[in-house]
């Protein structure tokens, strides 16, 4: 505005824009827009798109100790699809996701509804307490649980349960993940609950609804989009399961194998065996699985959520 006042020469043009200046101002607007987007775009290109393009490129090559690097087209992908170890990992994370996701969202929703209903000092403390595990770095949290699971120094050592045998370890890992992330999801859902209009509850109460009915029939459907979002993040997280199994691996390498999840397998291929090309192919395949899985979920819940 001040610019217009200080330079009257521009004023007539602004009053009656000709076609020419209109186009120019469009260009200028577009340029301004790009300028605003620039910081994000640079980061996106430099740290996501370029590395992805590079990874895709190396996934098309094959490098051997004797012959060096040769162009292999989609051979690595073919090998990964045929690799029983990749398949075993994919099946494991799918099963894990199928069990883990409802448990996680159930726990988070229950906690969110409870602290939303109660507005005592206790609820504030509980909210913080449930959120604290999320503030603990994943590596530290997992190491801590590793000690808790120990059968010589752990608090449950007297029970005679081996928490890291091949039968129990997936559940033990699920427990760690729930501990770590349920609080975070709870906060997401709780924030959504806080945004709902309170009058709705009042009218429900007048209509004779109990608190449980309000929680299940009013509140839960109204935060459907937050639920979908939390579920989506959980699905993505479980499919890319990596840190926890990698950290607990030394406790029982027979149960948590080097191909326990696709990500662990890709990591091992790259950093233990220097099979960067094959590792890149596995990562891209996993990316495709995550993408398809997320899409199926969004498609299935499209009526409930605002996310499409």
């Amino acid at each position, binding site marked *: 505005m001040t610019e217009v006042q200080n330079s009257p020469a521009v004023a007539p043009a602004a009053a009656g824009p000709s076609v020419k200046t209109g186009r120019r101002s469009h260009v200028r607007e577009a340029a301004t827009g790009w300028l605003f987007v620039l910081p994000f775009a640079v980061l996106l290109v430099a740290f996501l798109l370029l590395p992805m393009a590079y990874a895709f490129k190396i996934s098309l090559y094959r490098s051997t*100790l*004797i012959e060096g690097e040769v162009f292999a087209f989609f051979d690595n992908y073919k090998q990964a699809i045929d690799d029983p170890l990749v398949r075993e990992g994919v099946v494991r994370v799918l099963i894990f996701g199928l069990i883990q996701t409802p448990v996680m969202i159930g726990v988070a929703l229950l906690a969110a509804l409870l602290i939303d209903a109660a507005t005592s000092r206790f609820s504030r403390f509980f909210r913080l307490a449930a959120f604290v595990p999320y503030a603990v770095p994943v590596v530290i949290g997992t190491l801590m649980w590793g000690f808790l699971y120990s059968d*010589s120094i752990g608090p449950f050592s007297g029970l005679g349960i081996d928490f890291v045998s091949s039968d129990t370890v997936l559940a033990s890992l699920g427990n760690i993940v729930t501990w770590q992330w349920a609080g975070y999801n709870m906060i997401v859902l709780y924030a959504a609950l806080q945004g709902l209009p309170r009058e709705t509850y009042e009218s429900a109460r007048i209509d004779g609804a109990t608190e449980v009915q309000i929680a299940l029939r009013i509140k839960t459907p109204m935060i459907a989009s937050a639920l979908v979002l939390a579920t989506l993040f959980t699905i993505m997280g479980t499919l890319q399961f990596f840190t926890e199994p990698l950290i607990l691996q030394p406790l029982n390498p027979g149960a948590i194998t080097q191909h326990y999840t696709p990500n662990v397998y890709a990591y091992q291929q790259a950093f233990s065996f220097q099979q960067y090309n094959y590792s890149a192919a596995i990562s891209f395949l996993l990316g495709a699985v995550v993408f398809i899985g997320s899409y199926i979920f969004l498609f299935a819940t499209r009526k409930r959520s605002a996310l499409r």
Partner: protein
Amino acid sequence: VNIGNFSARRVSRRSVVAAVAATALALTGCSSGGDDDKPAEKPTGPVTIKVWAWYPEFQGVVDNFNATHTDVKIEWTNAGTGQDQYTKLQTALKAGKGAPDVVMLELQEIPTFALTKHLVDLGKYGANSVKGDYVEWAWKQVSSGEQVYAIPVDAGPMAMMYREDIFSKYGLTVPKTWDEYKQQAEKLKTASAGKSFITDFGANDGGFMSGLFWQAGAQPYTYDLANPTSIGVNVNSAEAKKVIEYWEGMVGAGLADTTAFHTTDFYNGLGSEKYATYLAAGWGPGYIQANAAKSAGKWKVAPLPQWVAGENKQGDWGGSSFAVTDQAKYPDLAAKVAMEIFGAKNTDAWKVGIDKAFLFPTATPVLESDTFKNKQYDFFGGQKVNEVFVPAYNAIGPFAWSPFNSYNFNQLTTNINQAIEKKTSWTAALDTAQENVKTYATQQGFKVQ
């Protein structure tokens, strides 16, 4: 990077600038490593040689070296233990920059790094002149003919550490053969009502299992860097199967435990009365001392049980060396550092190495010195344990490693661990490892025999 010590050093302005630049470049992941064959022109003042190693108490060795040398200065970095360091090293070597001049390599890793031609032939820089300081098997681990890929530092001849208190409590005798070992294990199981195991079989440690194979005379690989594209794979040899069958029986009968090595539960087992013996390497005394302090004074060392009574067959578990990478700007000076830092004549370094870091030296003059051979260890109730380890070291035979040792160890540990977990046949697991290694080697372009 030892930035803390840096300012205290009395160095010329030029080398300060060079070192600062090198540090900064190392931090950003790039450095000016020259890969010309000719050594670059030397600057005036001491040349900085970057060293990666994870020996305990290594700072003392470095300080000592720097105080006694005017032409070179070591800049030491602990870039992680074992695989962590190798991962960083592989990445830096592949990138062509960021690798140190001199690097600590475990003996089993040398062919892996030598195959990709990232190690400087130290033979060109006079390394063959120190050959006489080492016994044959140790020198063979680091060389191929006149080519020398690394200078040996420490080794891990195996022996049996046992708890004297548990042995006398249950009336066990020190076994001389593996048959006797099993008998004592049965006796222990009955007498302790299953509370104590004769030992723990750490199937997560490829070096440990390879050491036992080594003792039994197995040769999993036939490989010579002089003919780098051809490899013999015999992972499931009769000798290796003999070892694996024996331990399958021990574990199956509940005589040996299978807790993973280097875990809290394992250390607690050593400190408590859970394990009566520990099949240890030469570096074991220092390692156990640090991790199972509760049991100090109760341990003794005896030779590893034999497969045939009266024989003296031995194996090695672990050990390391110093190699020079192709990114060294002054390979002659880097080679000098590699040869001297834990050299046979460097008694000051070995004083730290033996007394503080508990390394088991490979250089014969150090091994045979009175200070080492007659050293009494309080942890072993005053026993001169090197009277057991030194003869064991000298009796070790040759053993070749594959140029893809991570894969080799991975196959061993994964398949045996899975067999333990699923209670399936261990020898079948060894067959699987053999097949997988052969497939892998073929895929990598080797001529497999």
